[in-house]
Each structure stands twice: as C-alpha cells, then as structure tokens.
C-alpha cells in the first residue's frame, strides 16, 4: 500500500477525493482527515484537538464519541505517518488541562461521613432508567495533599464533625425523598 500512491499504473493510483475509502482516516468528530491523529483503545480515530475539546466538554463522563467506551487523555495512542516532519506527541501541543479548574474549598473541612476515599477522588452518581445523573456534580477529592484535619478535641474538630453530620443528613433525606417521590 505504501507504494500505491507513487505508482502510475496501479488501479488505486488515483482515488477520487470523495471515495469512501478515504473515510477510514477521517476524524469521527470533524469528519475531516484527522490531523494530529490519535486513536483510542477502542480503535476510533480522532484529531487530537477535536478529542481534547470533547473530553473538556464532559470532564466527568469521558467516553468515546463513537462507541461510548471509557476514554482518557492517557489512553489514546498518537499516530505518526511516514515522513511526517513533526514527531511531537500531539497531546503535548494542545495546552494541558488547566490545573486550577477545580477550586479548593475555603477551609480544610473534611467529611468523615464519606471518608472511604483514600487519596483518590470520590465520585457520586446514580441513575434512573437510562439516564445516569451526577449527584453533587463535582468530584470530592479527599486528602490530596491538603493539610491534615485538625486533631480530636479542638473546637475546629467539633465544628467539622457537626458540618459533616449535617451534610450526611441532607444526603440521606435526599435519597429517601428520591425513593418515595
């Protein structure tokens, strides 16, 4: 195939610009020939700028536009064609997601009621029928490098215990109401 484009007498030497064969290498988002191409683990081809914009559009639910498989910046493979002058990873070109998009809480309140989240994020979602919706849409990141919670016995500790109980009760009431509604 590599020589087909150069050969003068081959049948496939002059494909029409609209031939459906070309569609194989079109981005699934802009429908144009993929530039700075990346391919997902599920095998779907995109321009990196197009896919990046989609991942930014729904940061909490990153799925392949074509097959809905999970997808992420780290799990796509850049494609380098023969003779391409720029071998830079396209994922480095688009400015990486701004680190400060998620604002930190004002104080270092911790929520022991939800305290099973180690150093990772805790994401709450449940759904009705075919429509999963996000409960407390932001991700609650616990213990990610912020100051440790105050030790037991201090007034601050008591206040946080109280806050977390209020929070928990709101959540319980909410779920209860959802069940009876």
């Amino acid at each position, binding site marked *: 195939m590599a020589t087909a484009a150069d050969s003068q007498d081959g049948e496939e030497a002059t494909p029409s610009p609209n031939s459906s064969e070309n569609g194989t290498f079109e981005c699934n988002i802009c*429908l144009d020939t993929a530039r700075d191409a990346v391919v997902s683990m599920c095998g*779907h081809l995109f321009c990196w700028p197009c896919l990046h914009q*989609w991942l930014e559009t729904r940061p909490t639910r990153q799925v392949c*536009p074509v097959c809905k498989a999970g997808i992420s910046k780290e799990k796509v493979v850049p494609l380098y064609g023969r003779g391409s002058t720029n071998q830079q990873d396209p994922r480095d070109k688009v400015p990486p997601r701004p680190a400060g998009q998620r604002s930190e809480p004002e104080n270092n309140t911790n929520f022991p009621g939800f305290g099973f989240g180690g150093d990772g994020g805790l994401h709450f979602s449940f759904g009705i*029928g075919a429509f999963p919706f996000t409960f407390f849409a932001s991700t609650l990141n616990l213990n990610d490098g912020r100051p440790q919670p105050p030790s037991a016995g201090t007034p601050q500790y008591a206040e946080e215990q109280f806050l977390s109980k209020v929070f928990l009760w709101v959540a319980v009431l909410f779920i209860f109401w959802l069940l009876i*509604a």
Partner: protein
Amino acid sequence: MAMEKRLQKELQALVNDPPVGIKVDADQIGQNLSEWLVNVDGAPGSIYNGEKFQLQFKFGSRYPFESPQVVFVGPNIPVHPHVYSNGHICLSILTDDWSPALSVQSVCLSVVSMLSSCKEKKRPPDNAIYVKTCSKNPKKTRWWYHGKQCYHSEYKTSLLGMSSMGINT
C-alpha cells in the same frame, strides 16, 4: 469555523447520498447553515407509513460538541408517546446521550426508528401541562429517560433537576 465546516460536509453528504425517507433541501438552507429543515417520511410498515413530517435543526456555535435543538415543525406533528404536540421530542441522544460522532443523518434515523417502534398513536400523558409550561428550547427541559415513559422538569425551577419528578405519573 469548525461548526460550519462540519455542517457543510454533512449537508453535502445528505444531498449527494440521502438515506431512504430523509430529504434535505439545500436551497432552503442556503447561506445560513445554523438552521435546517429536514423532511422525514414515516417508515413503511410502521403506523406512520405514508405520513410526512418536518424536523427543524438549530445548531449552536459549539456543535458538534453540543447537541443541536431538534423539534418537529409544520402541519403534521407525529402523534407518539415521546412527541409533544408542540413538536418537542423526548429522545436521550438529543441531550444526555449526545455524542459529537452523531450527525443530522443519525439523529433523523433515530427519530424515524423511535416512531417505527411505536404501536399506538398516543400523546405523552403530560402533554397538556408540558406544552403550556415548557421553554421554547427543548434542550432547556430536563428530560428523564425512564423506560417507556418520559419525565421532564424545567432546569430553572428544579433543585438538581428533580423538583417536578412525579407530577406527571
């Protein structure tokens, strides 16, 4: 502009190679690519066989990353449990399940297939209330896709989009 370039491609593909029962009038669209009318035929073998419908598409500048507004317009709005008499359609790909890999063509085909799977011509049970209270833009409605039944509430009046759940059961 990415949105116009993509719409141009979609339009060209639909004009050159239209699927059965779907017709788009390129002259009517003309220069303003952000609003299309698409003629859709009820599928043969379905209870809408022989009927003609018209879908209106409105595209925002963030298309295809955001879904288009799609409603039935014209004199014939299909009588269907997921289609309100004002033309609004309860179909998950038009809001929550939208993907930029979808297109005008795939939306039209989904709508036709939604119509085809219907056995009885019936309006949604909450049609009267909804038509009176809804926003003009169906995307402002918080739809609930729950089995065969559609639920909705207005974004603006709802806490976490749930306040009017249950009023229409």
